[in-house]
């Protein structure tokens, strides 16, 4: 009994290791080019190509790709930039729509046959995006309100009796300058890791259950659930791209509008 419990047997559940892929070129050091790196570059190239091909020769009556991309940019412009930031948000539409499309492409790689790896599940990409967003909203705040004014408006929110600042100022500092970028990248990458793991577990499980005659009937619901969850992951991909963009807009808006 003890000996059986001390060794694990049965279904080899895929763990976090599935995110690690062997190097195709170079060594396991700084210059390791593996499958994921190629997908990262592919995501960037696809994003650039989508914008360039759609708006290279814009026609008055949009057709095909231009139609799709105009719908996306219009959604970001009206639904996110203007609604969250206000009229000043128009200046940030290029940044926001680029972030939206890049995150969306990276997420959708999860369900594209032949790739099936969400680029954003490797934490490096969301971290870089979050650092970019951190710099953008801080620089915007400093430009709009001046260095001291920005620090003052962040750390000392008005309308609070002064002894409360002993409590409020550290909380505001941590939440604005540390937790904002941290939760921004954790939200995106953890969602993508979770989605990738769930899909892998159900597809690998289907294969495992097909291996023995006795368990073949159980492979059917496993496969059905895997297909259903693929649809759910498409929803999650779009939602996470939307949430990443809208949070970027909220942070920029918070830096622009001084609280009274």
């Amino acid at each position, binding site marked *: 009994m*003890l*000996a059986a*419990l*001390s*060794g*694990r047997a049965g279904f080899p559940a895929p*763990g*976090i290791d599935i995110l690690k892929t062997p190097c195709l070129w170079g060594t396991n050091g700084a210059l390791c080019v593996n499958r994921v790196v190629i997908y990262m570059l592919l995501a960037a190239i696809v994003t650039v190509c989508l914008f360039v091909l759609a708006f290279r020769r814009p026609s008055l009556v949009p057709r095909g790709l231009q139609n799709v991309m105009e719908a996306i940019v219009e959604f970001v412009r009206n*639904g996110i930039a203007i*609604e*969250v930031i206000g009229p000043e948000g128009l200046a940030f539409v290029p940044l926001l729509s680029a972030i939206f499309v890049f995150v969306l492409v990276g997420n959708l790689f999860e369900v594209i046959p032949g790739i099936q790896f969400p680029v954003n599940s490797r934490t490096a990409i969301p971290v870089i995006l979050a650092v970019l967003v951190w710099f953008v909203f801080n620089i915007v705040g400093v430009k709009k309100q001046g260095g001291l004014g920005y620090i003052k408006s962040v750390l000392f929110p008005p309308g609070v009796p002064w002894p409360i600042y002993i409590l409020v100022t550290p909380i505001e500092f941590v939440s604005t300058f540390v937790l904002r970028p941290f*939760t921004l990248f*954790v*939200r995106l990458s*953890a*969602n993508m*890791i*979770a989605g990738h793991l769930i899909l892998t577990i159900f597809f690998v499980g289907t294969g495992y259950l097909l291996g023995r005659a006795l368990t073949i009937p159980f492979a059917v619901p496993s496969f059905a659930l895997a297909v259903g969850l693929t649809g759910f992951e498409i929803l999650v991909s779009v*939602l996470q791209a*939307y*949430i990443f963009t*809208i*949070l970027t807009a*909220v942070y920029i808006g918070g830096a622009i509008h001084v609280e009274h």
Partner: protein
Amino acid sequence: MVHSLGLLAAAVVNVGVPIGKGLVYGLAAIGPGIGIGFLVGKSVEAMARQPEAAGMVRTTMFLGIAFTEALALIGFVLAFIVK
């Protein structure tokens, strides 16, 4: 004696770690689960009462979900850190 103690320790580690991982995520999901349910329920109520404000409510709802969900996701990441 020493051998069976070693086996017992290995068994505790092998059985306890998956249970711990499950508990970490499960416990982290309770609060955000209640919170998101409450939040979406209230938002639906608001949208039903004032359909013309539905767009604004929806945006704010997604924002609230994103903030609440972060706690559960940090628990999810912790579940992998537990070794």
